[in-house]
């Protein structure tokens, strides 16, 4: 019953979509300047339908209606309610429904938010966004309908993959989607402004909000995934250059570039073409991310099902959209109203451009690293993987100039600046940071000239952005975000250099000495929880002159499906994370134990939150 309701409201959604598309085309052609609220109502109804449909799926999951294939495949009666609900988007079909929901929600918010904009521009945006919505609707209904049913009704479901049963991962997909899908609106609006020939400062001011909003959610979404990887999956790592991580990083890099270039468009009415190209590219990257993940081309935890027809559909859809964008981009000339299109070499505009170049470079490195293995496999059937060394080697050297430019850039004025402002004081700081970083590198035993330079530039950046905090001529949100970024860089570097770890295979009663600490494996207890059995290890770490600390990492053996996961025990303080995780090795006698000391871990998360917070300040500011 609920199943059918959900299904029918989706079908109705398609009808609405077609109706809105035809109506908006008619309104555009007839140049009907009266924007008579009809679209507002239509989109509202469409939103209502898809929310209703989503709600039906949620109810299906809550009551564990296993006649629904999606519920059957991904849920189980013994699962806690919270994970029953998060299971809605923990699978392919449900997550696409959520994606669709956000698509329509954003269009609705756009209509609400753009009362002052020109009618023809608004209509065009609605048209383009509806085309995307239409495509996704077809995709959902024909290749991944969440409301398919099985008969006879199974008694019990197959369960949700236990590693997904985690609070951070429950909210990771919706947040990330808000970011991804936000770029769709930027895309539609850019195309609309191109057709409408209204790319100017006002448009930049208007679209900036959407760019910031997407960027904030994308940042937070990536962070949540990373936190989850840190304690659940990665055994202490937080970024693995896994293709699926890369796929979320690419739109982020592009969006970050866009975020900066749109400011130039706003302030100087320049960089129009570039801004449009970036908007299109950002959305294309978000879409191809979905394509790569959903098609099963990239194999990872995010690949729910390998169904070639889905991949093909998204690929064709993506192709059509990009083709449409390119045709529109080339058939409507973008006039530069600003006569002096060349920037003075020492100006904020140039600094923004430099930022964009770096972003594009980083983007292309990630792009090649992610796609090359796929192409190679298609062409030569050779299977390869590209790991961290590739990315580090290509990106890290370029971070040095990037940091230096980033320290100077925000202080420059628009249009034209003078050289004299870079004073001796700053040079002194640079030298000081060189000395400090030399000491750091010397002390940590990583004796590379290269690391010294890298650390000193990042300290320099940290100093510059910190001293910008008290300056008046820099925008407040920007200060916060730039400072947060420099904090992030320093934390990652310190974390990378000073992290220490030890792995060992231990039995109960075994001891281990590591950096004048004694790690003792005292005992294990068994406990029974609702939908898993628990093996809790008791470890005691004693350091001379300090109170011993108890660690209790867990191994959980879930009933349905039978999978074991390791839950790390992490003791966090401002300087260090102490991290213990253990896993089953052989018939439950010997355990694989890893102890890690990860300095500055908490600062990585704090700086990321701060980065997003800076963005949201910019959003609130009118």
């Amino acid at each position, binding site marked *: 019953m609920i199943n059918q309701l959900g299904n029918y409201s989706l079908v109705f959604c398609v009808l609405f979509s077609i109706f809105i598309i035809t109506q908006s085309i008619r309104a555009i052609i007839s140049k009907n300047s009266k924007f008579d609220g009809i679209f507002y109502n239509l989109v509202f109804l469409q939103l209502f339908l898809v929310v209703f449909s989503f709600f039906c799926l949620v109810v299906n999951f809550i009551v564990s209606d296993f006649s629904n294939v999606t519920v059957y495949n991904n849920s189980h009666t013994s699962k806690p309610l919270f994970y029953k609900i998060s299971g809605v988007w923990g699978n392919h079909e449900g997550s696409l429904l959520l994606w669709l929901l956000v698509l329509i929600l954003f269009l609705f918010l756009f209509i609400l938010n753009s009362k002052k904009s020109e009618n023809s521009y608004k209509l065009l945006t609605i048209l383009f966004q509806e085309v995307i919505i239409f495509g996704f609707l077809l995709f959902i209904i024909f290749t991944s309908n969440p409301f398919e049913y099985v008969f006879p009704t199974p008694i019990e479901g197959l369960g949700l993959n236990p590693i997904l049963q985690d609070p951070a991962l429950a909210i990771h997909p919706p947040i990330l989607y808000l970011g991804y899908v936000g770029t769709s609106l930027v895309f539609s609006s850019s195309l609309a402004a191109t057709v409408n020939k209204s790319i100017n400062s006002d448009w930049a001011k208007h679209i900036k909000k959407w760019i910031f909003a997407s960027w904030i959610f994308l940042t937070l979404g990536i962070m949540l995934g990373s936190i989850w990887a840190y304690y659940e999956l990665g055994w202490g790592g937080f970024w693995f250059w896994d293709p699926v991580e890369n796929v979320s990083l690419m739109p982020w890099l592009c969006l970050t570039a866009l975020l900066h270039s749109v400011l130039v468009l706003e302030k100087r009415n320049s960089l129009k073409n570039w801004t449009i190209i970036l908007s299109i590219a950002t959305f294309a990257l978000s879409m191809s991310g979905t394509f790569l993940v959903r098609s099963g081309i990239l194999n990872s935890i995010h690949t729910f099902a390998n169904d070639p027809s889905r991949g093909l559909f998204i690929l064709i859809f993506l192709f059509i959209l990009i083709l449409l964008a390119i045709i529109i981009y080339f058939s409507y000339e973008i006039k530069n109203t600003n006569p002096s299109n060349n920037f003075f070499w020492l100006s904020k505009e140039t600094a923004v451009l430099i930022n964009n170049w770096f972003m594009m470079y980083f983007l292309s490195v990630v792009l090649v690293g992610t796609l090359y*293995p796929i192409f190679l496999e298609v062409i030569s059937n050779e299977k390869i993987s*590209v790991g961290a060394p590739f990315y580090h080697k290509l990106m890290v050297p370029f971070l040095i100039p990037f940091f230096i430019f980033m320290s100077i850039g925000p202080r420059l004025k628009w249009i034209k600046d003078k050289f004299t402002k870079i004073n001796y004081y700053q040079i002194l700081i640079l030298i000081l940071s060189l000395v400090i970083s030399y000491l750091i590198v010397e002390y940590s035993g990583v004796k590379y000239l290269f690391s010294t330079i890298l650390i000193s530039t990042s300290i320099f950046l940290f100093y510059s952005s910190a001293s910008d905090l008290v300056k008046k001529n820099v925008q407040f949100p920007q200060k916060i975000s730039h400072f947060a970024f420099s904090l992030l860089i320093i934390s990652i570097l310190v974390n990378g250099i000073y992290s220490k770890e030890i792995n060992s295979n231990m039995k109960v009663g075994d001891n281990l000495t590591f950096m004048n600490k004694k790690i003792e494996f005292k005992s294990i207890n068994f406990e029974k929880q609702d939908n898993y059995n628990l093996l809790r290890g008791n470890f005691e770490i004693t350091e001379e002159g300090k109170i011993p600390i108890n660690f209790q990492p867990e191994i959980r053996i879930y009933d349905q499906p039978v999978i074991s996961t390791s839950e790390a025990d992490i003791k966090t303080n401002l300087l260090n994370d102490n991290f213990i995780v253990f896993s089953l090795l052989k018939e439950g006698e010997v355990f694989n134990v890893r102890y890690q000391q990860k300095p500055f871990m908490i600062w990585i998360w704090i700086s990321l939150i701060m980065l997003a917070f800076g963005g949201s300040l910019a959003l609130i500011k009118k």
Partner: protein
Amino acid sequence: MFGKKVKLRIIFLSFALVSLILIVFLILKSLEENVVYFKSPTEIKNLSELTKKKVRVGGMVKKNSLEVNSKEISFVITDFKNEIKVTYSGIVPNLFEEEKGVVAEGFIQDRKFFVAKKILAKHDENYMPPEVKKALENN
């Protein structure tokens, strides 16, 4: 010969072109150095020359082959045709078990011996790396 503006533009363009070429060269070069090839035990046996580079080996963990001491573990990866012994010290994923699929990343010592630096995590009891699946199907 050229006006000042044109000259500037030519300089800029050639600069951009050179840096683009450099970047492409850099990316491709480091790609070549840093890719990790996937091999099955049979493929390793048939290698004409043993590589010093990092590779991945995939297959099944042979029954009763897992040995554990306090420093490291060792096991045998088999594709049911040929096998290779692997030693590893480090953390193993929870789904690492005998008679299950595994992918080990590390260095080939000789045709029968492999030192792993990493055992790849799999997150689903039914999941098998496509490489393993293919290698198993081919044999």
